[in-house]
């Protein structure tokens, strides 16, 4: 079952072409790495998938549906920014997610908070930046979504948290759902990925299975990335 399909997906911001002619197919049960330098269009692609942006041209289909209310119910998005307000406690956010998302597993979220020693009664605005990121990740991963879009989930965190995040992604694995992770830290993420997409200046230059790259090119994805995107 194809979770995500785009054809000729294009996004124009004023005069800037952020994405151009993107044709993509992601099957269910895959963990996909979306790799590319800053400004290559990774975030734009994710925002098009979750409905925050509308295409300038081309089509995008999530589980065969156009982005809208129905797709938002099955897409779980972790942006790079923190979307918390300043009046809620952690528990309030859990209630919020339970209220709006049918696929939210409150018990699972509570377990994950416990594992990271985060108090549900804590005021979110009093938490450290790192802890806020963890809470945001927990909320996103505690949903039984069909498509997870994680924008730079391991960028600003320490190695221990990085391991926890990758371990959560593996634990969460569901053959009916797919995960798209955009990142710079390729070496860390590579063992978790099924396939990778290289995005260069808004265009796809590579979309391949990780094993195939290692088999045919005899190098890791990380190494290949450095070659393809040499400065």
């Amino acid at each position, binding site marked *: 079952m194809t979770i995500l399909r785009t054809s000729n997906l294009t996004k124009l911001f004023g005069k800037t072409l952020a994405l151009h002619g993107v044709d993509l197919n992601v099957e269910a049960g895959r963990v996909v790495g979306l790799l590319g330098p800053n400004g290559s269009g990774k975030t734009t692609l994710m925002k098009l998938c979750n409905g925050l942006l509308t295409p300038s041209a081309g089509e995008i289909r999530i589980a065969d549906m156009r982005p809208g209310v129905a797709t938002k119910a099955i897409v779980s998005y972790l942006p790079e920014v923190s979307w918390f307000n300043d009046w809620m406690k952690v528990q309030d956010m859990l209630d919020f997610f339970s209220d709006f998302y049918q696929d939210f597993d409150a018990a699972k979220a509570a377990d994950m908070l416990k594992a990271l020693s985060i108090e549900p009664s804590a005021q979110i605005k009093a938490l450290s930046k790192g802890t806020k990121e963890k809470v945001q990740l927990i909320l996103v991963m505690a949903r039984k979504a069909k498509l997870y879009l994680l924008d730079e989930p391991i960028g600003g965190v320490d190695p221990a948290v990085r*391991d926890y995040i990758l371990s959560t992604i*593996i634990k969460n694995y569901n053959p009916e759902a797919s995960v798209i992770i955009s990142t710079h830290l390729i070496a860390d993420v590579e063992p978790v990925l099924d396939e990778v997409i290289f995005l260069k200046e808004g265009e796809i230059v590579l979309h391949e299975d990780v094993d195939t790259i290692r088999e045919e090119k*005899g*190098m890791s994805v990380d190494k290949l990335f450095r070659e393809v995107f040499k400065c």
Partner: protein
Amino acid sequence: MAWQFDTDRPIYKQLRERILLQIVSGTYGAGAQLPTVRELAEEAAVNPNTLQKALMELERDGLVYTQRTSGRFVTEDEAVIRKAKNDLAKEQIDLFLQKMAAIGYDRQDAAVLIQTTKERKQ
């Protein structure tokens, strides 16, 4: 702690070797039940699909079999395990002899050296 992998070879191949080693060395004895794909993937910190590929290769080689409702088991056929053990040992010996040849020692010299080298304190 995640397992460490070489970066220039497919991970599923390395996973297969790792699990094979555990089988032939007795960590998973004949007939023993293997942990689930999910558990192994978590422990190794790898993609479950990749681990599944590794296990399927082992199954193809007859070292592992799947019982639909109960999971994966190591084969009870000790002969198969012994053969795999020997094959693995021969591989290592070949590699060793290659390295000795690069240093300049042939098979004889290597054998003598093995006999006379004191066992390293464990």
